[in-house]
């Protein structure tokens, strides 16, 4: 039915199967849209946020997906600026994942503010000292860059490619893509960094506060490092998962392995600095505020327990770093995927504690640990973002030549 839209030389499942899958995704999208509509119409009282949890699930997810979506800019940087040619085989999906992550984050941010129609105030009355201003400018600009990077991919659809003007336009976009890759790298570096800075500058929230270099707290650099260490890992995971779902070879194993190597090397660097940062924070920063490490954790186990720190730095930090930098382990698919998965989980825990634990740690010695469980509307809104990502990836995979190696790898 839609054969004319499918790139030549590749096989796709029949339209009925695809339509059923898209139907499920649309159901999730509808649920999300309903939750979103409630939040927009009735207000943020539809969530379980409160005066202690001004930042909650949505901001955690924002930070999480932005870190995990860093594969787009970093793979682009390595491909177009550093010149690692092999990455051309995976750059397209990296861009699409990045587009979904950044677009989703923007969408959630728009719902998360109390007065959506005034969101432009951040651009009109910017406070140049606020990290959130930097975040807002960078995410908006970088999303535009991602759109520019995604656009020539769309033009490669066989029907659009028939048009001479669009074909030349697409070709020229590809020719000059290094400019957008450089611009995207610059913007995304600052974006990731300023997200880290958003929490690191809070000298009144000892859990998040970090000293730093010049105007930037250490979290500024740690967020960049952790993003470029986990972004390629998510790109690897998604590609591997797509191969399993479609039962087709999309990239050669050495490309996945290379992504794992990049993620692992950067994760090693990140973990070393993160361990140093945690040591300095626990032994110098917290005592200077009159607090101890255990004042910032609710015992060892349970919500906000010290196990989160052990999990973040140990099980999901040091362990994947070792797995991914060890060539022998990387060569085995199981370890490569496990390493990438643990890498993503570790960075997600980092974003979780920075957002939620920063709010939860009692600021007064006599205060209680507040509790928070997201409402279904908050989950639904997140579901909407997931649905949009699934929709975009599914449609792109079906109708665009995303993987240059696919034809060759599935020749039989």
């Amino acid at each position: 039915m839609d054969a004319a839209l499918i790139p030549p030389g590749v096989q796709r499942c029949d339209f009925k199967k695809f339509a059923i899958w898209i139907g499920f995704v649309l159901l999730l999208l509808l649920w999300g849209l309903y939750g979103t509509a409630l939040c927009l119409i009735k207000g943020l009282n539809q969530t379980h946020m409160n005066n202690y949890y001004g930042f909650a699930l949505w901001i955690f997810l924002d930070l999480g997906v932005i870190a995990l979506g860093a594969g787009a800019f970093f793979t682009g940087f390595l491909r177009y600026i550093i010149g690692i040619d092999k990455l051309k085989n995976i750059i397209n999906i990296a861009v699409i994942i990045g587009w979904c992550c950044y677009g989703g984050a923007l969408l959630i941010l728009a719902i998360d503010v109390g007065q959506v129609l005034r969101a432009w105030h951040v651009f009109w009355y910017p406070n140049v000292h606020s990290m959130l201003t930097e975040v807002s400018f960078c995410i908006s600009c970088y999303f535009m860059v991602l759109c520019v990077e995604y656009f020539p991919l769309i033009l490669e659809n066989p029907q659009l490619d028939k048009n001479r003007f669009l074909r030349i336009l697409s070709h020229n976009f590809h020719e000059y893509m290094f400019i957008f890759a450089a611009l995207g790298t610059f913007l995304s570096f600052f974006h990731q960094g300023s997200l880290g800075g958003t929490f690191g500058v809070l000298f009144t929230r000892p859990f998040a506060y970090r000293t730093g270099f010049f105007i930037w707290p250490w979290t500024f650099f740690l967020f960049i490092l952790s993003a470029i260490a986990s972004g390629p890992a998510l790109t690897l995971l998604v590609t591997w998962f797509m191969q399993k779902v479609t039962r087709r070879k999309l990239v050669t194993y050495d490309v996945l392995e290379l992504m794992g190597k990049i993620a692992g090397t950067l994760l090693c660097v990140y973990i070393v600095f993160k361990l140093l940062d945690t040591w300095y924070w626990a032994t110098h920063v917290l005592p200077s505020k009159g607090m101890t490490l255990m004042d910032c954790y609710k015992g060892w186990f349970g919500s906000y327990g010290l196990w989160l720190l052990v999990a973040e730095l140990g099980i999901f930090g040091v362990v994947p770093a070792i797995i991914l930098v060890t060539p022998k382990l990387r060569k085995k698919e199981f370890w490569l995927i496990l390493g990438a998965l643990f890498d993503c989980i570790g960075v997600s825990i980092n974003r979780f504690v920075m957002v939620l634990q920063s709010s939860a740690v009692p600021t007064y010695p006599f205060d209680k640990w507040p509790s928070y469980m997201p409402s279904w509307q908050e989950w639904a809104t997140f579901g909407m973002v997931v649905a949009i990502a699934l929709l975009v990836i599914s449609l792109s995979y079906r109708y665009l030549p995303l993987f240059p190696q696919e034809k060759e790898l599935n020749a039989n």
Partner: protein
Amino acid sequence: MGYEHKEERSHAEKYVMVIDIDKCTGCGACVVACAQENNIPVRTDETDKYLSLNWLVIYRVTNGEPFPKTKVVYVPRPCMHCDDPICVHVCPANATDKDAKGIVSQIYPRCFGCRYCMAACPYHARVFNWYDPTYPKGTERGFNPDVSTRMRGVVEKCSFCNHRYQRARDKAIAEGRVVLEDGEYIPACAEACPTNAIYFGNVKDPESKVSQILKKEKPYVFRLLEHYGSKPSVYYISRQPWVRERLDWMLEQEHKQYNKKS
């Protein structure tokens, strides 16, 4: 260990609040006066205090000892109007500012409700309008015309009743004066306190009541979350050493010092 106020601005006025915890009975008159003065909305269901709109709250703090050794104090907590206000630094839209007389303001029509200031403020002095403002029937007639009501989706906070300052200043200018006299401008909470536990005034005037109290009670004066570094403009007084220890995080040497006193 007392506190000496360091002048950080060149303006002739710098308003501070001094709260004598030992005098506070926790009656809540200040909270009610604040709510009425500032048109603070009231919902039918106020059971979840984390959603309530209060510019001033009272914490009940005990010494943690079982009966009969239990001791209790009540700690009124308005906005601290910090000299290094983290909320002002972080607000992305310049919707909050610190003026020359030391008051941290909030521009409601500019705030777009990102709540970064709430995530930053360690005093929980900032509250969010989760709901559309509602008032018990008939109370609209008692609205204060000098204070704007706030809309859903913005952050609000204590203003040290800034409108009262403007009113007092208008009067002073009409009378040919520039600087207000001591006591001419005080917030509703200080005015309503039946035990005179809340003092308010210009700390740059050495003759003002607050300057005198801060001088006289110097060994017993402290600020909340002192080591966080935001330099609050609200001072507390308590002559009971355990109170200071329960109310704030203390450095190791301070613990030793207070244990000796206890």
